């Protein structure tokens, strides 16, 4: 059995110019691997949303992507403020993004709902004041 491919990306906080670099890189690799376009699309959308969330809310963090021939697992780990009410955050349209972020076209309150929608499973482990760890899996 071949080893899984593990890719790590440091996400820098409040740097919108670099947001999306990690998801683009993963996308390119998945296409080289011959993963179905539909799965590539799901990973790209979910990961980009997560990346942006880390930039906006958590001052960056780290994303680890583990690829096996069966699935793509994305772990988004940050040391941000945590999510006080996960159920509320999961509601479409709910957002705590400040105005200056919204003026950039972000903060529509679709981040977490979209991440759930485009993945086969999503787990949120969050602690107030300590950080959030989101684990998303897309089956190949």
């Amino acid at each position, binding site marked *: 059995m071949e080893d899984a*491919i593990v890719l790590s990306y440091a996400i820098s906080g409040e740097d919108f110019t670099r947001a*999306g670099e990690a998801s*683009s890189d993963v996308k390119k690799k998945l296409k080289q691997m*011959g993963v179905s376009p539909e799965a590539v*699309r799901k990973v*790209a*959308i979910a990961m980009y949303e997560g990346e942006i969330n880390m930039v906006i809310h958590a001052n960056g963090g780290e994303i680890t992507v583990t690829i096996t021939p069966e699935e793509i697992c994305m772990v988004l780990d940050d040391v941000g403020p945590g999510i006080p009410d996960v159920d509320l955050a999961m509601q479409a349209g709910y957002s705590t993004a400040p105005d200056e972020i919204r003026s950039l076209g972000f903060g*529509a309150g679709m981040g977490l709902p979209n991440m759930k929608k485009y993945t086969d499973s999503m787990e949120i482990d969050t602690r107030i004041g300590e950080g959030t760890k989101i684990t998303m899996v897309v089956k190949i």
Partner: protein
Amino acid sequence: MDKFYHSVRLDAELCKGCINCIKRCPTEAIRVRGGKAQINSKFCIDCGECIRVCPHHAKHAVYDKLEAMKQYQYTVALPAPTLYSQFNNLDDVNIVLNALLLMGFDDVFEVSAAAEMVSEATREYLESHRESLPVISTACPSVVRLIRVRFPNLIPHMLPLNPPVEVAAALAAKHAVEKTGLPRNQIGIFFISPCPSKVTYAKAPLGTEKSQVDRVLAIKDVYPKLLSRMKAVRDDCQDIGKAGKIGISWGRSGGEASGLFTENYLAADGIENVIRVLEDLEDQKFTNLKFVELNACPGGCVGGVLTVENPYVAEVKLNRLRKYLPVTRSHVEEEGQQVIPWTTGVQYEPVFRLGNTMMESFSRLNQVERLCKKLPGLDCGSCGAPTCKALAEDIVRGEAVETDCVYNLRENLHKLSEEVAVLAGDLSGRDRNGSGEETVKLLKDYIQRISEEMAVLDNREDEEE
């Protein structure tokens, strides 16, 4: 016709094996092997970037020569809107159109007139296909080819309408047959093109089985012939122009989109910018966007490599020319409806896949990751691949070897020479005791290994010669 037909070619005689083209190719389709550039036909999208950057003019486009006009009994010229932007102080397209007749063409059909029909059909398509929004323009063949090999998720968003050149060719051919009664093969439909990408399109079109364009001439070849004839065109020449503002505007970036009467559009030009937009579209970063116009050349078609004028100057000239024209002068009508829609779809071609099966690709991707960690990460291009990562991909595909990396080779040589120095020091110490024979033998071994490493380098140079 080969589905990977190309009009961008290499002239091996002129190629010096430098790294300019490999670094600029947007799909990493070029490698320098044996001292000469090679274009991977599966990756190449005929954008012409390499023609633009090659300092030795070793890249060129294949297109037809003017003499090809003699092979037909009746010829029709299809001038691209970009053609009008090449001339100084042109205030009436009729001067160019009549000069084309003086050049020997029997008739002209403006691509800009067909463009207005495509604009009209696009407006209808946007209204009736809201589920496909944002719709991506398919007028630039390089963009269509890029999406075909790299953005499978965006294929359903492509505008399934023929580009203006095809619509113009189909209508021009139909009119010529009706007018002359000649068989179709005696009629030559000549497109006067700003770029090699359209040459590729005419030979191996996407979206339609066979193009009605018979020959493609370069604007830069037709330009000097037209200049003298334009002086001979009289003020009371025939009024044959059939395009308005919308049609003429297609020659520059944003022109196609401006004919759609919506503000919710994006227009990007230059292949690198186009790729960034497609990446973002794939990640669904844009909302409320109706139309995406993409042109591989900077500035749009005016930036094509077969033109003569600076693209930005050309754009000013185009804007001046359109100023006094009516908004539109050509409409779809019945015959247009028959030739505008695509008749075939576009299939995803996963050419960047590393292996034949998913398991093989996965295993190779793993190897690429491991190799990338070993390579220096300088992306110097000396191995002939544009980046270290591209070299790693070539290695796992079996098209290159690790010692192609000159840094790896240099490091090996350094290690060996350091060990030799240590041994030599050792030897001079022992000489006083008179027992250095074994060390001398070792030293000889090392020197042998150094020459072997050097031979690897020499071999490569031999290959290049």
